[in-house]
């Protein structure tokens, strides 16, 4: 009796969870479906899910209408530089805050924590003026340099992990006469690899999807990142839904593929950052 009741409640749970999962997926499916239709099919009532015929040309049209390839290149190279730079600079600072004793250490660390509370919108105007004075407006530098050199959250996250490493790990190397740099690169970094990949994923997603900063710092379409290019595209094809959905697919699908392949890693990384943060 009991097992039977449990079973039916489990089935009900699966049905509800399945319906929920469908709701989460439908916008993507409808996007792809619309992207593969012509204008005659896209306005059909009731909606038709499978295009007939498939209009693959929409993708070609969206890729040639605007330099999306260029935007991908810009986004990817900016991201690689920022992620690598952040992993180095954040882990260095985090290691020092966790394991090295120096004057004002805690006070400086508190300053880092305090900046986590400052929303980007507060500093954006002074930052814009600084970049203008440096002559960096309409270049990629305002997107790369501040991000590469400052991620207080990253420092905080990695510091938690360094602090969890027992001091015995370092002591042996100290006795062998290794200096701090050697300990950091040879002993400590390999021990916090999971935290580094979590931070890397987090930074990558944040940078990749970021719209506010590029919107303010970039003017030339050749320099646009993917979200900026898509926004430009939206302005051009506001009424042609097939091309709009093709453009959105071009922007979304590569990331979705990466997500599906590496989902365990990504979700665990986000969880880790969320808990630690």
């Amino acid at each position, binding site marked *: 009796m009991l097992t039977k009741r449990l079973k039916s409640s489990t089935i009900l749970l699966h049905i509800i969870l399945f319906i929920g999962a469908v709701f989460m*997926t439908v916008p993507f499916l409808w996007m792809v479906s619309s992207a593969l239709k012509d204008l005659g099919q896209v306005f059909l009532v009731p909606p038709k899910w499978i295009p007939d015929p498939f209009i693959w040309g929409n993708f070609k049209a969206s890729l040639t209408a605007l330099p999306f390839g260029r935007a991908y290149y810009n986004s990817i190279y900016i991201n690689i530089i920022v992620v690598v730079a952040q992993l180095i600079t954040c882990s260095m600072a985090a290691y*020092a805050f966790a394991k090295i004793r120096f004057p004002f250490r805690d006070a400086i660390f508190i300053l880092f*924590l305090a900046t986590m509370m400052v929303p980007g919108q507060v500093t954006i105007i002074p930052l814009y003026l600084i970049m203008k004075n440096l002559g960096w407006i309409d270049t990629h530098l305002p997107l790369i340099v501040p991000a590469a050199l400052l991620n207080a959250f990253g420092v905080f996250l990695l510091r938690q992990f360094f602090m969890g490493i027992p001091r015995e790990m370092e002591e042996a190397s100290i006795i062998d006469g290794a200096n701090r740099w050697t300990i950091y690169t040879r002993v400590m970094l390999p021990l916090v690899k999971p935290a580094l990949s979590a931070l890397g994923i987090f930074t990558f997603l944040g940078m*990749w999807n970021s719209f*506010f900063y590029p919107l303010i710092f970039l003017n030339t379409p050749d320099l646009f990142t993917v979200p900026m290019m898509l926004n430009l595209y939206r302005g051009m094809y506001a009424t042609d839904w097939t091309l*709009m959905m093709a453009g959105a697919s071009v922007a979304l699908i590569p990331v979705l593929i990466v*997500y599906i392949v590496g989902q365990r890693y990504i979700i665990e990384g986000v969880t880790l950052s*969320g808990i630690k943060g």
Partner: protein
Amino acid sequence: MVMSTQTSERSETFAPTVERTDAMWPSMKSSTSEALWGYFFILPQAIGLIGFAMVPLILAFALSLMQWDGFGARTFVGLDNFIGQFKDPDFNIAVVNTLYYTVLTVPTGIILSMLVAVGLNKVKGKVLYRLFYFMPNITMSVAVAVVFMWLLNGDFGLINLYLRDWFGIQGPQWLTDTRFVIPAISLLSVWVGLGGSMVLFLAGLQGISATYYEAAEIDGANKWQQLRHITIPLLSPTTFFVTIISIISSFQVFDQSFVMTGGGPAKASYTMVFHIYDSAFVDFTFGKSTAAAVILFVIILVLTLIQMRISKRWVHYEG
């Protein structure tokens, strides 16, 4: 002061062994060279901290007290920019819209994500379900905004087509009707944010010991009673954390309304960040814009401090 207690508090919570590190460090190296190594390691991030956080923040406070169009002379105007914001109808519209959006988005998101997390927690195929629920969370805001423009289209959008087909309801012109534009953006945000909150709730659920449920089971408590008297109370620190970060991100909503509606129709989706952006980069009133940004900062600061204070109490309560 609040900050410093919070720091040690956090380190104790997450890494109990840590604080003893310093005292036990062997005195093999001179403390001067240790200190130099320390400064060397923090140097790159410290440069970033000064150049891209502290200096801009100080400049922001200074600018908020000035009248300036970005080119001419700067004039000191005291608190006029702040007083002006409260008298500015645009600012007031932005605050009302942002609050309305927050009230719609945050509770809906919290309740749905908690329910999904509880449902997923012990179910077979958890990883597969999680894949789908989390998927919108990693997507680009601009791209999903474009997709939702199509889904929410008043005449041919999928949502209205099915409302008509299945329920016989004529759906509204979501994005061009002043009454529906905020609910529409809120719907998009709930869809995007659900997975992120769910992941945090799942992590919180992992922390609840199975023995509570075993004991409740023996006492004959049903699933609903277990949820009501074990899961929800013990999950409360996570709930509080998720609530605060959701409110903070709600106050910063911008991309969706910028892409989908341009703040319209008739400023019905004009939010606080939109106002900051418009004042600075459309009207070139930098002083007014930074004053609005400082007000946003204060709101977020207060929320963060409340979160720190209360979560601290909760950690103690639980531990």
